[in-house]
């Protein structure tokens, strides 16, 4: 048993991704001087937090067999709301609730379109992505928000024991959702829905409510990520969050969550987020043009989904 247990760990995607991360860390610390510096590493962690937090929600959505491409615009929208409220001098706790609330509302709306409107997830959230981006233009009127009051910026920049506070929050959320997905009945129902919706329905699992739940949780997490973004960068623009959806989805599928549904872990997605973050960071340090970043991430997404599809095809026939 221990032998097969070890083999199973070695075969897991999480292990492969972990190995890749180690390899890249070694590569970048040998080829660049700055990679291993404290300032670069803490910068890396700061940038990672938002992606990792959103990837938790995205993992659950993809496990049910869905997808949400509106998270970039949703992050932007939450940043706009947070930024405006902060500039208006509202207390931080209210701003926190407002960002969570905006994200939650967007998620609920997506979930309802998908579960009750029977609109394919990619289309529902694609529409939402465009609508939200347009709303952001209207709200900002083409201007930036900058000069965010310093009190709130502790969420984005503050540290405790040398580790950014946003990373502590991420760690807590990863721990909580790992527990939720592995030990709570509702968490397991999410896997069941992605594995075999028909069997899940017969077992008495409410497919619509489960769908609504995962999109709503993703929305709220993205809303929080939006606040973290504002607190870290201190500015909000009309293009804030564009391309963010790609990063989140990349983290999730690289981390071993099956795009076909039914399989995946939030730990894997955290590792995936690290992988994406390290690749981006390392490429900057190596002075690779920023445009190639998309190329590398795109290739990685396609490769890892290909592995997934081949794995499933191999089993079913």
């Amino acid at each position: 048993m221990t032998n097969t247990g070890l083999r199973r760990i070695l075969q897991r995607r999480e292990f492969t991704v972990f190995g890749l991360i180690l390899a890249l860390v070694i590569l970048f610390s040998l080829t660049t001087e700055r990679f291993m510096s404290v300032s670069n590493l803490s910068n890396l962690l700061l940038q990672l937090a938002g992606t990792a937090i959103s990837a938790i929600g995205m993992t659950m959505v993809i496990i049910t067999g869905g997808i949400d491409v509106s998270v970039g615009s949703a992050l932007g929208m939450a940043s706009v709301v947070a930024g405006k409220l902060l500039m208006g001098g509202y207390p931080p706790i209210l701003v926190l609730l407002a960002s969570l609330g905006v994200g939650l509302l967007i998620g609920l709306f997506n979930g309802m379109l998908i579960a009750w409107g029977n609109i394919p997830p990619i289309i529902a959230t694609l529409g939402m992505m465009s609508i939200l981006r347009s709303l952001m233009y209207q709200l900002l009127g083409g201007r930036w928000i900058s000069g965010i009051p310093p009190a709130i910026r502790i969420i984005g920049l503050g540290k405790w024991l040398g580790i950014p506070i946003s990373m502590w929050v991420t760690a807590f959320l990863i721990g909580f959702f790992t527990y939720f997905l592995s030990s709570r009945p509702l968490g397991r129902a999410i896997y069941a829905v992605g594995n075999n919706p028909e069997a899940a329905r017969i077992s008495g699992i409410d497919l619509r409510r489960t769908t609504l739940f995962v999109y709503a949780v993703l929305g709220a997490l993205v809303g929080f990520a939006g606040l973290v973004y504002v607190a870290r960068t201190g500015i909000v623009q009309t293009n804030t969050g564009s391309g963010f959806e790609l990063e989140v989805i990349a983290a999730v599928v690289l981390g071993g969550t099956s795009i076909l549904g039914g399989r995946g872990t939030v730990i894997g997605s955290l590792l995936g987020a690290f992988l994406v973050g390290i690749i981006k960071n390392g490429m900057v340090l190596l002075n690779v043009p920023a445009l190639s970043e998309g190329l590398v991430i795109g290739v990685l997404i396609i490769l890892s989904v290909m592995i997934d599809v081949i794995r499933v095809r191999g089993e079913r026939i």
Partner: protein
Amino acid sequence: MEYILECRGIFKSFGGVQALKGVDFTLKPGEVHALVGENGAGKSTLIKIISGSLLPDRGDIFYMGQPVRIDSPRKAQDMGISTVYQEPLVYGELSVLENIFLGREIRTPRGNIDWKKEEEKAQSLFTSLGLPYHFLREPMRELSVGLQQLVLIAKALVYEAKVIIFDEPTAILTEHETERLFSIIQKLRDRGVGIIYISHRLEEIFRIANRVTVMRDGEVKGEFPIEAVDRAKIVELMAGKLLVEEIARKRSRGEEPLLSVRGLTKKPRFFDISFDLFPGEILGFFGLVGSGRTDVAQSIFGLLAPEDGAIIFNGHRVRFASPEEAMRAGIAYLPEDRKVQGLFPIQSVAYNISVTMLRELSRRFGIVDIQKEQGLADRYVRELNIKTPSLYTRVYSLSGGNQQKVVLAKWLSVTPKLLILDEPTRGIDVASKSEIHNLIAQLADRGLGVMLISSELPEILKMSDRVIVMHEGRITGVFEGQEKTAENIIRAATGERMVVSGGVGA
């Protein structure tokens, strides 16, 4: 309480078709009650009503003596009625343990899933059924289909099932797995569980059932203790006095076979299949789903590669590597599921008819000649009497019968010599059905060879000049003339090897 489950006077209709006409069915605790009947007899409708997937139009159901209304599968399970379907409904990526307990988790006081208790309970269940349990933590997909099914039986016990319905459980099992299933069914019975057992394999019923109910045309035709009945009686009741008038034909069968198949084999789907098909002949293929009929047809059409054997078509030995080659040689295949395999539903009638011959219809530079396309479509719409508002109506808005005629038109437009029809009238209204039957007869009279696959006995009896019956991948009977009776065909289809009349083919 004599009966654990009692259904009285159950009626159910679907859009004017009476599927159940006052069915009575009872089940005692600790018995295996077999339910048999041909396709369309009403077995599955009755099962769906008992398991909560359908509500009856009329009639009463009593469970443990109390009248009940079973309005969802979940409710049926909560009451203690579980169903083991032919294809196991599993969560492939989740562990065996989760497959058993999902929806019924054992929880710790804090509401977490108590894996340890679940594992202990599963272990004691498996032990009591005489099953190994070392695979409880493995993903379900790594188990064989037979084991998956046993896991689902264990799941029924977790739900404290008092009634377990087995819907053709052995159809996909190996012999060894079947034996194990039987020993478990016996154990369940000894524990006082009531078992409803549906199977087309009569020998199984005589092995494990205590009672048997025979259904036909939505009615119960007989209910017997197993000792009081024999195989012949059951077959007779299943077949009934089927009064089928054969369709009028010119009988213009050619001399030389159009298609000769010799020793065609593709394990494990079919073995040593040999037959001849003559021009102008309608050769019926009857058998249960999974008996290999469709696989044989697809091998002839180039969709499956046979391992062994020869196909001689039109005087030449052939082996088509693709459907396109088969089509060019003059074979047309009308697939079983027209929605998936035969139609482009959101395209027009004209497009659907002409799509197989776009090359022939195109002018210079490969542009499709619209006028020719229209002419072709128009001709078939009139010839086949397709009821459509216009040539440019989207096909999905037509009735099932007219959709099927469009598929037929599509294949006729390539002027084939051999037409393979797989369940051509499934799910079609009665009027269109008889129109399609007339069409098939006309085509055969014009000299086409027709291979007609059908699970409907009346259709086979009405249309075929000869009938080949398959059972588990082998030909178990060939009948024509006087011997082409419902009873003979059912006997062969349930696995009895018949004396083959007229030899194999020629």
